[in-house]
């Protein structure tokens, strides 16, 4: 395993574009901390974001994992091009001839995916811990380490998304097309959802119907469903909503085992299909 990782990280690290993207990713992740310095004023009222409770434990786990997940696209590009390059350079063929088995090849790629997901998770965990201790109103250990399932969900989410990217890289063989395909897939899921929900079943946005049920089984939707948006959970926002006279928005922000299992099933499908494609294909 050490050998495979060393092979893969040499391939990534020696590539300038990949190196820059990986570094950019981690720099941008640490910029989440800068949110704390945002201040804005409504009339004479000055609001400092950090004081609005976004860095309170345990809410910070939810908020930071949600925001950090946006940056995953940087690593997605690295992963897709890492795979597609092997095809364009013909090095996949050469690696196999040099004595790497197809199984080892796939394994090494998924080890990279796992490492990226793990490193991001660890980074976000440490950063949230530091930010939380600097700004949180509650510092009791039991509160600090509650709701840690968001960190776990973040890891699963990244691992699944990167696996999907890798699978597309293997399927499409060209990085630009694979990323395009990823976008098309995302759009297609949404269009499918709208058609089922609004056109076929004639639903509206207030109520849920079969469209909402089925869409959560789709890969991208299931991944984004793992960690729901945290903004409306904030006390400040809730206050505003109530003041506007809207109906009490009862929303479930927690992470469910069923959602995790859907994502895990997709991940397994991506890994196995990638292996199957590689095995069947003549190079």
């Amino acid at each position, binding site marked *: 395993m050490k050998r495979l990782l060393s092979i893969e990280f*040499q391939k990534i690290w*020696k590539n300038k574009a990949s190196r820059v993207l990986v570094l950019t990713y981690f720099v941008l992740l640490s910029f989440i901390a800068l949110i704390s310095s945002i201040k804005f004023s409504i009339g004479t009222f000055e609001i400092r974001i950090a004081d609005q409770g976004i860095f309170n434990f345990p809410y910070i786990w939810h908020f930071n994992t949600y925001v950090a997940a946006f940056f995953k696209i940087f690593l997605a590009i690295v992963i897709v091009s890492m795979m597609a390059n092997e095809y364009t350079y013909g090095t996949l*063929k050469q690696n196999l*001839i*040099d*004595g790497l*088995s197809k199984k080892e090849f796939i394994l090494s790629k998924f080890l990279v995916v796992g490492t990226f997901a793990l490193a991001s998770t660890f980074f976000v965990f440490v950063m949230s811990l530091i930010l939380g201790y600097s700004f949180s109103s509650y510092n009791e250990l039991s509160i600090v380490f509650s709701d840690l399932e968001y960190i776990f969900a973040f890891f699963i989410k990244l691992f699944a998304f990167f696996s999907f990217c890798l699978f597309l890289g293997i399927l499409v063989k060209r990085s630009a097309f694979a990323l395009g395909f990823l976008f098309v897939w995302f759009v297609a899921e949404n269009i499918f959802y709208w058609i089922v929900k609004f056109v076929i079943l004639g639903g509206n946005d207030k109520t849920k119907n079969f469209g909402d049920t089925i869409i959560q089984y789709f890969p991208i939707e299931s991944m984004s469903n793992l960690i729901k948006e945290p903004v409306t959970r904030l006390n400040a926002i809730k206050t505003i909503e109530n003041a506007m006279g809207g109906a009490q928005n009862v929303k479930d922000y927690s992470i469910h085992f069923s959602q995790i299992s859907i994502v895990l099933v997709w991940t397994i499908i991506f890994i196995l299909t990638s292996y199957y494609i590689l095995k069947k294909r003549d190079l």
Partner: protein
Amino acid sequence: METILTIRKLNKRFNKYVHAVKDVSFEIHRGNVYGILGPNGSGKSTTLGIVLNVVNKTSGDFEWFGGKVATHDALKKVGAIIERPNFYPYMTAKENLELVCKIKGTSFEKVDEKLDLVGLLERKNDKFRTYSLGMKQRLAIASALLNDPEILILDEPTNGLDPQGIRQIRDIIKVIASQGTTILLASHLLDEVEKVCSHVVVLRKGEMLYQGTVHNMLDQNSFFELQASDLSQLKSVLSNHAEIDRLEEQDGKLLVYPKKEMAASELNAYLFQNNIVLEHLVKRKNSLEEQFLELTNNN
């Protein structure tokens, strides 16, 4: 003699129409230099691709080193270059070779030695993408030799190179062959094969036409090249000879193919008895090229 590679009734169908390899069987023994000959599209590269784990076989069997190890582990003891050199363009020559070492699971100590062998030691810290085709091809050879392989497989190693490049590659191959490494060389360049190889396998449209030593292949047909002042008379006299298989006229000379081995003196005596004095008599064998063309055209 130790068998390095055994291929039995190997078949590859790409689709309904393309049957690239048909029932090919042969064996590679240690210490010999083999040539695989065949026109474009004859299944040479596909056959090599199958034994090198990059193309899936349709049916048949092959085993490396008596079948004791898995194919990918066996390939760690094989050095192979196919068609064009494949390396990471953004890495230097040294880094690329170190990566191959990691894949093969060996130490980096041979990297410099092999770069020196192919004359790239001075350029080892330059990126692969800055290399010329000849240098790329030489780097590929260095890479294939990294592990001091049991067998070196070369698929068209001189393709697209200029005369100097071809010469360099050929010299390197000769050095390697002289060190006793088993070599399997697929090539169009028949004089190259004739000079370097001891054994040949001839393929056409996926079928194996010949397998054996170069010596035997050339020995099969020796023939005479004759010239006399009256060619038509010569022809009519010879067509009465019972041992002559066929006659062919070429550039004012008559090519005479006997049914079996015949001494030049015997033929000369026969013609002299029939009042023909020859101006020109040569007993010769087909070059590998002629033999190859005959084999691939006439069947």
